[in-house]
C-alpha cells in the first residue's frame, strides 16, 4: 500500500548503506566513548601493577591528606594508601558488575529467546515468572537474599544475579517477538528452516544489538547498586579494599579527614560515569535508529 515517499528525505541514503558505523564521521566520538569500556577494564586488570602500595597493610602515617607524604589520595585512619585501596576496589567492583551483567545476558537472553521463539503457553509461563521478578524491587530483594544466604562477596553476586536477569529476559523476548512478526521469519519457514534454525539464525542475531545496548547502559547502574550493597556491609569482609564499604567504615572521619570516606565514593562515581558514557556510545553505534 505504501507507495509514497517517506516524509523525511531519505534518512538512509543509498550510499551510506553497508558502511560500518565506525567509519562515519559522527561515529568517532561514539567509538571513543565506547572504548572507555576497554580502558576501564585495562585499569582494572592492571590494578596490581598500577597500585603503588599494598592495599591491606599500613604503609605510612595515618590520616595524611591527599598529596602529602607522596600519597596521591592520602592515607586512611591506620595509614593505608587510599589510592591503592581505590584501585583494587575498582578492580573488584568492575569485574563484579561485568560478571552480573554477563550472567544476566546469558540467563535472561536464553529465557527470552525460548519464550519469544516458542510463543504460546511456554511464553506465557516464562514471562509471568519474569514479570513476577520484575514486579519486585530488585536491590531490596537482593539484600534479603544475601541476608538469608549469609553475607559474603560471592553470595552478594549470586543474589544480584538472581534479581538481575528478568530485565534481560524481557528485552530479548520483546525483540524476538517483534522480529518473529516480520515476514522474514515466515519466509524462512517456507524455505524449510526448522524451529531451532529459525531461532538461532533468523531471530537471535536481531536481538543481540538491543541486548548489548541494554547491557552497556546497565553497567553503570550495577556499579552503583553493588557499591550500595557494599556500603551496607554486604560485600567482602574487612580488610579487603571495597569502594562502598571503605566509605561506610570511615564515615566518622567525614568532618575532619573528609578524603578518607569521600575518595572511594568518587572512585565509584568515576567508574559509573565512564560506564554510562561508554554505554551511550555503544547505543549510538549499534542503535542506529
Amino acid at each position, binding site marked *: 500500500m505504501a507507495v509514497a515517499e517517506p516524509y523525511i528525505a531519505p534518512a538512509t541514503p543509498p550510499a551510506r548503506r553497508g558502511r560500518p558505523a565506525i567509519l562515519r564521521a559522527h561515529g568517532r566520538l561514539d567509538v571513543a566513548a565506547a572504548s572507555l569500556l576497554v580502558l576501564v577494564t585495562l585499569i582494572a586488570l592492571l590494578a596490581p601493577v598500577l597500585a603503588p602500595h599494598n592495599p591491606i597493610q599500613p604503609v605510612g602515617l595515618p590520616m595524611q591528606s591527599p598529596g602529602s607524604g607522596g600519597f596521591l589520595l592520602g592515607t586512611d585512619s591506620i595509614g593505608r594508601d587510599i589510592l591503592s585501596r581505590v584501585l583494587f576496589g575498582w578492580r573488584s567492583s568492575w569485574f563484579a558488575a561485568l560478571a552480573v551483567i554477563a550472567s544476566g545476558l546469558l540467563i535472561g537472553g536464553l529465557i527470552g529467546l525460548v519464550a519469544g521463539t516458542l510463543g504460546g503457553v511456554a511464553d506465557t509461563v516464562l514471562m509471568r515468572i519474569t514479570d513476577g521478578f520484575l514486579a519486585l524491587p530488585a536491590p*531490596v530483594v537482593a539484600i534479603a537474599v544475601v*541476608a*538469608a544466604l549469609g553475607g559474603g562477596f560471592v553470595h552478594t553476586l549470586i543474589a544480584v544475579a538472581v534479581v538481575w536477569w528478568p530485565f534481560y529476559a524481557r528485552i530479548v523476548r520483546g525483540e524476538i517477538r517483534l522480529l518473529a512478526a516480520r515476514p522474514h521469519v515466515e519466509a524462512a519457514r517456507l524455505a524449510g528452516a526448522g524451529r531451532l534454525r529459525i531461532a538461532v539464525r533468523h531471530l537471535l542475531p536481531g536481538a543481540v544489538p538491543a541486548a548489548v545496548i541494554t547491557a552497556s547502559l546497565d553497567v553503570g547502574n550495577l556499579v552503583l547498586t553493588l557499591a550500595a550493597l557494599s*556500603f551496607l556491609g554486604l560485600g567482602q569482609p574487612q580488610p579487603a579494599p571495597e569502594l562502598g564499604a571503605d566509605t561506610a567504615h570511615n564515615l566518622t572521619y*567525614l568532618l575532619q579527614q573528609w578524603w578518607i570516606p569521600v575518595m572511594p*565514593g568518587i572512585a565509584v562515581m568515576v567508574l*559509573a560515569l565512564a560506564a554510562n558514557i561508554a554505554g551511550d556510545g555503544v547505543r549510538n553505534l549499534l542503535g542506529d535508529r
Partner: protein
Amino acid sequence: MIQLIAKRLAAAAVIVLALTAVMFFLQKISPVDPVHAMLGPSASPAAIVAEQKRLGLDRPFLAQYGSYLNGLLHGNLGMSYRTRRPVSTDLGSFLPATAELSVYALIFALILAVILALGSTLRWPGSSVFRLLLIAGASAPAFLLGIVGILIFYSKLGWLPATGRTSVLNPPTGPTGFLTIDGLLHGEPSVTFDAFRHLLMPALAVAAIPAVSIGRVLRSSLIGQMRADYVRTARAKGLTERQVVLGHVLRNSVNAALSMTGLQVGLMFSGVVVIEEIFGWPGIGQYMAQSIPAADFPAISGVTLLLGAGYVAVNTIVDILQAIADPRINA
C-alpha cells in the same frame, strides 16, 4: 476502566503473595537458625525443642507457610533478633519517616526529570549545563551525594541540618505521620519548615539517579514523538511549537516515562536504605541497614515485604495512569 483497575489490583495481590513465598523460602534456606538466634548459644536442648515446637518448626513445610501467611495477615512478622520487639511494631514506628522521605524524593525526581526533558526539547537556555550536571550527579552513588552534601551544606556553609527528621523536641504526632503536613495541620508552620530543611538533602540525594533516568526516557520519547506524523499535522494547522509540545507530544510521551518511574522506584528504595543510614533518618531503611550486620532476618524480611508491597502499589498506579494517558491501552 473499572475492569482494568480490578485486573491490575488482582495482579498486584498475586505478586505480593509471591513475594511472601520468596521470603518464606529464604527464611527456610537461611543458615541462621531462628531458635538459636532467639535463645542465644547457651540454650539447653530442651529449651530449643520447646521453642521449635512453639514456633511450629516441627510441622510440614506447607503448613508452616500457611501459618506464616496467616501471621502476616494478622500483622505478625515475627520477632526481631536485634531489638527483641515484634517486627511489626518496629516497622509501624519507622514507616512514616521513610514514607515521607520517599514521597518527597519521588516528587523531586519527577520535577527534575520534567525540567531536564522539556529543557533540552524546547532548548531552554542553560539546559545543557543543567543536563551535564545531572548526568554527572546520576553517576554518583547516593552515599557520595549524601556525604558531599553534608560536607558542603552542613559543615562548610551551615545551611542545612545533617541528621534526623527534625530538631523540634516534641513534634506533633499524627494524623498523617508526615511532619511537613502534620506541622501545618497542627498550626505550627515552623515545624513544617524545619522538617523540610531536614528533608531537602536526603531527598535530593535519593532523587538524583531516578531523575536522570526518567528525564532521559522522557526526553528521548519526546524527541521520538516530535518526529511523528501527527506532529507534522499539528504544525500544518499552524499551531505554535509550545502548543504542539504541550498539547500533543507530551501526552504521547508520558507512558515511557511512567514505566521508567515505576522501575526507578525499586532502585530508589535501595538509595533510601543507604541515605537513611547516613543521615540518621529514623525510618525502615536505617532499621534495615542496622539489621544487616546483625543478620536479623525477620527484620530484613519485614522491610523487604513492606518495600516490595510499596513498589507493587506504585507500579499498579503507573499501569492505571498509562491506560488513562493512552486510550488505546485497554484491559
